């Protein structure tokens, strides 16, 4: 199956979850689906039947409300069963609205209080080096989290400790709760900032599978002591044009009849 098809499946799982709950961070899930497809079907080493396998690459979801996106990827990866799609956000579900480590197989950390993930990733990368474990820590964070000072404490620290086993992925969709991230606390020029702090930085179209593959491969095979960041420019609600066009997309309002319509739109564009 191609990465494009995987991304399409991830989008489909996410829309089905959103439809069950009647709401959800569907914009983020659709926007990040290509990144997650490349991560889970090209980049990460893991065992679907043993999500805590010591040799796995660690994929940390710092942005807890992107949980719907990660559940969709974990379902596609066979870590979570597809039959549980109907439980998303429900009482007693393994898939709560904001991701928590204790709830879901494959969810490494409890994110959601933003600006935590990269610091935890620093600690895990230090720990892996202590154990001489060659696994890599990936921390998936948002452009909004670049406003949190703790993120930059971790950015400095990763360089200080030479964490070449740490790769940060920034989803730059320029949307946060009150509007555009760049209108609130602008992190631009993002790439220059990370580079100035000593990271190897790349900026790609996060909805272009080819660019993502190249960037992830380069980050992993860099061969020097720098930590690496991939800044992925994505479009919220990518793949469902009538949702892409909505102005406020942090928590996109989808009318009950629109879920089926969204699936239909997606299905029409199914990659071969």
């Amino acid at each position: 199956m191609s990465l494009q098809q995987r991304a399409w499946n991830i989008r489909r799982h996410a829309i089905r979850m959103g439809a069950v709950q009647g709401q959800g961070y569907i914009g983020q899930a659709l926007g990040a689906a290509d990144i997650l497809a490349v991560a889970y079907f090209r980049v990460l080493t893991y065992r679907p039947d043993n999500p805590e396998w010591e040799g796995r690459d660690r994929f940390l979801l710092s942005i807890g409300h992107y949980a719907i996106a990660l559940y969709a990827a974990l379902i596609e990866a066979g870590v979570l069963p597809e039959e549980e799609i109907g439980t998303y956000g429900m009482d007693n579900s393994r898939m709560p609205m904001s991701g928590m480590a204790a709830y879901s197989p494959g969810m490494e950390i409890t994110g959601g209080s933003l600006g935590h993930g990269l610091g935890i990733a620093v600690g895990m990368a230090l720990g892996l080096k202590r154990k001489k474990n060659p696994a890599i820590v990936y921390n998936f964070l948002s452009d909004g989290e670049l406003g949190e000072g703790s993120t930059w404490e971790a950015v400095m620290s990763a360089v200080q400790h030479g964490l070449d086993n740490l790769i940060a992925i920034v989803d730059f969709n320029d949307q946060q709760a009150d509007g555009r991230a760049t209108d609130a606390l602008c992190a631009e020029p993002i790439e220059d900032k990370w580079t100035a702090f000593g990271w190897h930085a790349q900026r790609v179209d996060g909805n272009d599978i080819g660019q993502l593959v190249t960037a992830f491969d380069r980050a992993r095979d860099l061969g020097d002591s720098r930590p690496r960041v991939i800044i992925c420019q994505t479009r919220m609600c990518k793949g469902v044009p009538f949702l892409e066009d909505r102005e406020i997309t942090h928590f996109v309002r989808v009318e009950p009849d629109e879920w089926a319509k969204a699936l239909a739109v997606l299905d029409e564009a199914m990659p071969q």
Partner: protein
Amino acid sequence: MKITKAPPHSRRKPKYEPRLAPDRGDGERLTTSAMIASLDAEGRESVSAPFGHALAGLATSRPDIVGLSADLAKYTDLHVFAQAHPDRFYQMGMAEQLLFSAAAGLAREGFTPFATTYAVFASRRAYDFICMAIAEEALPVKIACALPGLISGYGPSHQATEDLAIFRGMPNLTIVDPCDATEIAQAVPAVAAHPGPVYLRLLRGKVPDVLSSYDYRFEIGKAKHLRHGKDVLFIASGFMTMRVLDAAERLQAEAIDCTVLHSPTIKPLDVTTIVEAARAAGKLVIVAENHSIIGGLGEAVASCLMRAGVSKPFRQIGLPDEFLDAGALPTLHDQYGLSVDRIVARTRAWLNEGSAS
């Protein structure tokens, strides 16, 4: 526009009024800096850096132990561990949010991190990180903090007068407030062996040794009697236990008979022992703590006694609900009621109140 601002301390002298240094009569003046490093003014034997030595010793048989500090290894006695095990020490820099997130990450990878800073920075600055990255997942990170309560003369920036109030509300977190060097040495292995996160209030530098002359053994979650008497029950934690032991000795000379119950674990509180001791108390229950009277051991004891239906005359010795002054520690302890003199005087006065009514 004119800004109307209430004075922070009504009794504080105007800012621009010149002041001469006080003379104690013997030509000696108490200074702030001489008193901030340690509590070495108790007229007792002291031990140097008990936390650092205990941790360095324990780590030889516990390869999972690592140490982290946010530029305060030297001032939390963690430097002793760092010198003994340089490859297991992580200097995280002046970044407390990172300190505790990274400690959480190391714990996730199977290590037992001891992360040190000052109590003010852990409780006020890094709360969300301790809460969500560590406590929510019950990770075995040990948060060891110097200068809890009033152990610094630098003023509110260094005085963690409300650290217990802040941390008591955090689920999963065990809170330990040891009395002296002996207890710190015993607490370190117990805290390391405890499966979850622990907040350990440190005494650093030269630390008085009191409990070695008692038949005492630290256990997480246990309050223990150090002295029995029929009139007054003192319940205390931290260095206030040594102060109430001294106070009890002096009150004995006035025929006031005191029990001292040392309760170093603030959470989970040893409710059974505390309730039994309060039921048996003669005239008065006094909780003494190096903390604000809001949200610390005193209120924890009060609520557990009310729930148990034990209604004894009850008083608190603790810090007032204020931002405290800067100055020399002995002066401040006397000013805010933590000194032995003040404990003795207030206990006497409270007993007299009781007999008058």
